[in-house]
């Protein structure tokens, strides 16, 4: 499976502001290249105390996608999946999904989306800390 990392747009290392990723280039959906089924796009890690909000969409509305949030206790540490949810082929937009830890603490979150087909598409994914 292809996996591509993408650039965040804000101070993700501090867990401040918005860690937004639009398409693969990080410069907006319109400029994002089309990716084939099997491609996974992930955000950078962001540190958050109160959880994160994941949202996004695939721009070709006949495509399906699988969205995940992983969490690690340390930057770059072993990541554990804490959310998995599909979209498509009818609903191609992931609603704002709030993920909050059951046990208080500081966690390092990452959002990923995998295009599951059947057609190539651009993707948008956004992961923001909950204030």
């Amino acid at each position, binding site marked *: 499976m292809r996996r591509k990392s993408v650039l965040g747009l804000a101070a993700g290392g501090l867990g401040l502001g918005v860690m937004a990723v639009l398409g693969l280039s990080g410069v907006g959906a319109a400029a994002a290249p089309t990716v084939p089924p099997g491609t996974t796009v992930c955000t950078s890690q962001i540190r958050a105390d109160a959880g994160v909000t994941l949202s996004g969409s695939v721009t070709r509305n006949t495509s399906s996608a699988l969205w995940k949030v992983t*969490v690690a206790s340390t930057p770059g540490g072993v990541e*554990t*999946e*804490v*959310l*998995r*949810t*599909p*979209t498509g082929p009818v*609903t191609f937009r992931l*609603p*704002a*999904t*709030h*993920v*909050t*830890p*059951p*046990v208080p603490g500081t966690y390092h979150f990452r959002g990923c989306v995998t295009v599951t087909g059947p057609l190539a598409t651009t993707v948008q994914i956004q992961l923001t800390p909950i204030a």
Partner: protein
Amino acid sequence: MLTARRRAGAIGAVIVLGTALALSGATAAQAVTTSNLPPGSIICTDKIRSDKGTAFYGFVRSAGALWMVRAGSTADGTDSPILQLTSAEPSTTYASWPGTFYYRLCVTQTQPVTAAGRWNHFAQPSANAAFGIGPYTATLGSGGYFCGPSTSGPSRIVGTSGVPVRWTVDVENGDGDFLRTIDLGTSTSLDQLLTPGDNEYFNACVRNTSSAPATLSLDLT
């Protein structure tokens, strides 16, 4: 109550939702809820104990509802939201944090209409999983109803409500075919023994027949 009393099936729900249960990795035991939700109504399932997370899918016609998974470290202690999203028909969504937690699913009708809904809440397969822990709780607007707790063995049905509500039991066979409804009367409290017949399953239900919203709990123990 702490027992694996949920029955296999929910075949109807699988067909209605077009969601393949076999793909979910779920055990056969799960909580299936059917409902009619006036605006502002909230229904929370009983709890599932799991060391491998929980999952749900369902629908609320037609504009969507707020779906919230809550988790706590004890069966009867406090819990907190770990997942929230607004959707009319969420596909199978998994929430899983390391450790053993008690999960429940709460669905809130956020639209200004009365809407039908149905959802399944289950655990990932695990020897440590348990179902049907504690009561369903709800705030039901006037005319709202839900069916949730279920059993295939002798059980007590226990309910409390702030206003008079109608308690009933829907009886189904092992294929999920509806057989009859048992009317347990209209009251603010209920405590009766139920004994299903062979190949019968009881689904406990409640309808708010009062004009004011009902804050209630319903359990099979």
